[in-house]
C-alpha cells in the first residue's frame, strides 16, 4: 500500500495535464463567450475548462497560467443568475437545473495583470457534460460495492433514464410550441376580421362625411 500514494500522485498529475481531448477555442481579453444548454429539470451539468496562454518567446502555448482567471456566469431560462463566480486558470463548475429550458453559460477572462494578455490570445479547452455523463462511475462502484457487470447495468439504466427525461421535456416543449402556433393562427384570423370591419366602417364614414360636407357647401 505504500506504493499506492506515488501511483495516485502520478495518476493525478497525468489527469491534470490531460483532462480530455475536448474542444478548444481562442478568446480575447475582454471577450465574453456564451454557450446555451437546453436541458430538462433536475439535470446536473459539469463544465471543465483549462486555459493556456500564448507565449511570445517560445511561440507556443504555455501549459498553465497562474494569475489568470475566468469568470463564469450561468443564467437559468428566466434570465436569473444561478452562478456567478471567479475561477482560476483551470476550473470546474457545476450546477443542477431546477426549471427546464435554455440555460446560458458565459465565460470571460478576468486577468489581473494586463501584460499577460499582450500576446492577445488565450486558448480555452472546454468540456461540458450533461446528465448521466456527469456520473462518476468508479466512485459509484466504490460506494455501492458493485462488480463490473453491475456497474455497466447501472450505466445503461442511467442512460435510459436520461433519454426518458429528455423525451418528457420534448413533449412539454412540443405542447408549448403547439400553443404558440394556435395563438398565432388565432391572432391572424382576428386581425384580418378586425381590419376588414374597420376598412368597411372607415369607408362608410368617409362617404357620409363627404356627402354632408358637399350638402353643406351646396354642391349636391
Amino acid at each position, binding site marked *: 500500500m*505504500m*506504493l*499506492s500514494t*506515488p*501511483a*495516485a500522485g502520478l*495518476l*493525478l498529475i*497525468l489527469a491534470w*495535464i*490531460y483532462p*480530455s*481531448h*475536448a*474542444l*478548444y*477555442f*481562442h478568446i480575447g481579453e475582454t471577450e465574453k*463567450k456564451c*454557450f*446555451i*444548454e*437546453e436541458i430538462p429539470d433536475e439535470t446536473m451539468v459539469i463544465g471543465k475548462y483549462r486555459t493556456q496562454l500564448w507565449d511570445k518567446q517560445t511561440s507556443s502555448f504555455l501549459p498553465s497560467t497562474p494569475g489568470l482567471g475566468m469568470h463564469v456566469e450561468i443564467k437559468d431560462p428566466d434570465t436569473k443568475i444561478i452562478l456567478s463566480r471567479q475561477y482560476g486558470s483551470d476550473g470546474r463548475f457545476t450546477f443542477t437545473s431546477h426549471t427546464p429550458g*435554455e440555460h446560458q453559460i458565459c465565460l470571460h477572462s478576468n486577468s489581473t495583470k494586463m501584460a499577460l494578455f499582450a500576446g492577445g490570445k488565450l486558448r480555452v479547452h472546454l468540456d*461540458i457534460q450533461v446528465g448521466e455523463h456527469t456520473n462518476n462511475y*468508479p*466512485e459509484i*462502484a*466504490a460506494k455501492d460495492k*458493485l*462488480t*463490473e*457487470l453491475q*456497474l*455497466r*447495468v447501472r*450505466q*445503461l439504466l442511467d*442512460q435510459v433514464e436520461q*433519454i426518458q427525461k*429528455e423525451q418528457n421535456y*420534448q413533449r412539454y*416543449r412540443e405542447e408549448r410550441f403547439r400553443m*404558440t*402556433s394556435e*395563438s*398565432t393562427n388565432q*391572432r391572424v384570423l382576428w*386581425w384580418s376580421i378586425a*381590419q376588414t370591419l374597420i*376598412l368597411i366602417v*372607415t*369607408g362608410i*364614414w368617409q362617404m357620409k*362625411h*363627404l356627402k354632408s*360636407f*358637399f350638402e353643406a*357647401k351646396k*354642391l349636391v
Partner: protein
Amino acid sequence: MALLRRKEGSGGRLLALAAIFGWCFGSVRCFGQSQDSELTFLLPAGRLECFFQTAVKNGTMEVEYQVIAGAGMDVDFTILSPEGIRLIVESRRSDGVHVVEPTVEGDYQICFDNSFSRFSEKMVFFEIIIEGQGGDVGGDEEWAGLEEPDGSLLEYKLEDIRESMDSLHRRLERSRQMQTVLRAFEARDRNLLEDNLWRVSFWSCASMLVMLCVALTQVYTVRKLFDDKRRVYT
C-alpha cells in the same frame, strides 16, 4: 483515486496499473474511444468564431451544425485540416452534416462566420463525433481495476453478456445524439414561430394605423379642395 486505494493487491501491480491508466487517460490513441462534444453558442453579428478539435490518425470525424435562431437563420461554415487545407467551405447554409474520413493527426479547425450579417446575432448548435481507428470500443478503460465477477467456468457467457451490454451502450449513446439533433430542430422551429408571432402582431397594428391615416388624409384632401378661398358656385 478511491479505486486505487480500494484495491487489495500487490503494490507493483498497482503502480503498473496506475501508469497504464494514467497514460491511457492522456492519450486517445490507447483505445479507439468515441468522444462527442456538442455545443450551442451565440455568434454575435459580424464575427467569426472558430473551434478546434484534436483528431487521431485514421479516425472519423462527423460534424453536424444547425442555426437555431437569428434573422436569416444561416451562417458560413468552414472546416480546415491541421495542415491548413480548407476541406469544406459552405456559404450561408442553415444546417449541414459532414464526415471527414480518414482524419490526420492534429487539430481540425471548425469555423462559423457571421460577417455578412450586420445586426442579427445567431445561435448555432454543432456536434462533433470523433471515432478512433478501431471504431467504438466501450467503457472498459474507465473502469479497469474493478472487481471482476467470479466465474471462470462461465467466462464465455460473461463475454457474451458484456458484448451485448457494450452494444447497447453504444446504441443508447447514438439515440441520445439523435435526440440532441431533434431537439435542435425543434428549438429552431420554435424560435422561428415566436418570431412569426411577433411579426404578425406588429405588422397588423402597423397596417391598421396606415389604413386610418390614409382615410383621414383622403377626407382632409378632398375637403381642402373645396376650401372657402376658391368658391365653387353652382
